């Protein structure tokens, strides 16, 4: 026993430098938010020679960070909501009323996994402008709804584990197909819905490409887009830029702490099932 305990202590010590290197970038930006520009340029790695907190006040005054936060929340919330609903709805007939048509639909949707967003970018840009969806938050939400293909496959996989007798009993009780889905099937999908919501939220919240292409006016910026614009604005004022970065990391960090178990479970479930 003592022998194995000793070995594990060695792991603690061995992992210290690796963990330190992995964490170092975050230490660096956090510590520099409490410095003046000169201090940060002279001693980027050390603790501040004099702690200042004005960067945090300034970042809220000089950038539209709250506005961008609200935009990010709005886009993510509605896009994820629709993605999950559309994906779950699509899976329902495929699993509970499978026939030749639903099988064709499944193969058709499966092709979506192989089509990278980038390959459709040029016509998509034209399409969005033809539909008058450029520079509109609604436009971005509609565009993200194509992410429901991924959720569709997660949902169909999970739905197959729901006993068919459940929905058949409801049919006998006179429940409509619409009613069966919303009242019986959908509530049972809670675990896979949580997984879907987490992964779609991370994708949309972090996405840069689509907001950069389809949102122009600064009042509609998402947080990631805001960071991109600020990078050009604060080229020399590193502490300001780092402060903006740290502030935008706060909601992500909270999400991480709250959801860590679910994220890990989602990765594991997705991986083990393959």
């Amino acid at each position, binding site marked *: 026993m003592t022998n194995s305990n000793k070995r594990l202590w060695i792991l603690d010590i061995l992992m210290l430098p690796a963990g330190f290197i992995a964490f170092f970038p975050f230490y660096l930006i956090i510590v520099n938010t409490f410095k003046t520009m000169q201090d940060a340029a002279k001693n980027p790695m050390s603790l501040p020679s004099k702690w200042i907190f004005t960067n945090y006040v300034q970042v809220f005054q000089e950038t539209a960070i709250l506005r961008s936060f609200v935009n990010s929340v709005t886009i993510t919330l509605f896009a994820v909501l629709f993605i999950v609903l559309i994906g779950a709805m699509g899976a329902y007939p495929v699993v509970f009323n499978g026939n030749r048509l639903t099988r064709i639909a499944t193969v058709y949707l499966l092709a979506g996994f192989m*089509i990278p967003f980038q390959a459709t970018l040029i016509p998509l840009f034209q399409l969005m402008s033809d539909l008058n969806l450029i520079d509109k938050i609604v436009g971005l939400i509609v565009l993200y709804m*194509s992410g429901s293909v991924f959720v569709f496959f997660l949902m169909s996989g999970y739905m197959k584990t729901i006993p068919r007798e459940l929905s058949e009993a409801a049919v006998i009780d006179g429940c409509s197909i619409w009613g069966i889905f919303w009242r019986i099937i959908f509530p049972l999908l809670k675990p896979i819905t949580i997984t879907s919501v987490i992964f779609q939220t*991370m994708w949309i919240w972090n996405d840069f490409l689509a907001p950069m292409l389809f949102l122009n006016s600064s009042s509609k910026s998402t947080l990631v887009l805001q960071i991109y614009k600020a990078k050009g604005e604060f080229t020399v004022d590193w502490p300001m830029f780092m402060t903006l970065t740290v502030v935008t990391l706060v909601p992500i960090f909270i999400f991480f702490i709250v959801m860590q178990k679910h994220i*890990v479970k989602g990765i594991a479930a997705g991986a083990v099932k393959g």
Partner: protein
Amino acid sequence: MTKYARQLQFLLFLLPILAIYSLFTIFPLIKAFFLSFTNFNGYSKVYDFVGIKNYVMIFADDAITSAISYTLFFTFAKALLVTVLAIPLAMILDQKFLTRNVHRAIFFFPSIPSGLLLAYIWGFILAPIGSGVLNTILRELFNIGPQPWLADPLLAKLSTIVVATWAVTGWHAVLYLAFLQSIPKDYYEAASIDGASRLQQVRFITLPLLAPAMTISVMLLLTGGLKVFEIPFALTKGGPGFETYSITQVIMLRGITEAQYGLASAMSIVFFLIVLAIAIFQVTVMQRRERGIQ
């Protein structure tokens, strides 16, 4: 309720997803295929079919060939590095040492924020000037002059790969960890009774049983790697020259900035085919490998 009406009601559930997917994924792909044979410039309504001219031009375009070779190099180098690091990391994080949970969180966290943001953070570390953090460390510790981490073609490529590896290794370790935890402990007990060393146990029990995880992890790394954009864009803007231009960035440059729709569409189709070919090849090879091992 007639059987016909019932079937129709069921199909209505499929309608929203089919509509959205057809409009925003399939239609643009077909249109890109069509445009790739034309000289459409985005403005003029009149355009001609030019046959495979755009596909020929891809290989004469320095920016595009550079983007293809960088993207492939980035994808394979990152996939290799992440795999080589994530498997031992997962094995270590599977042991019960004191700071295990702290380390799990530290390695996993970088996979949560946006790649753009992470790359900007690394931009301060890799800044080519003397005030760059890495250059400061090198000067103070080893008295080495400033290195052009993001300005030299090779160093810039390697820097983007290192940052991307740092960002996702923890995530892939978690994936491997899920498989490690599903390996029954008796396998190891039986092996150690038979006198197998710890190293032999890893070689003959752990690694073979991780084969399915590897298939998934490598597939995600390859398809994700080919779509790379944010990390090189944020670190180097694609430079120096076109050295770290990703395929995504070059499609946007030629297609949207310069309005060469035909050329960019041809590039999109080639990109789609590359992704398709690599994905099919990888899954076939690795599944055969899984069967061979088990």
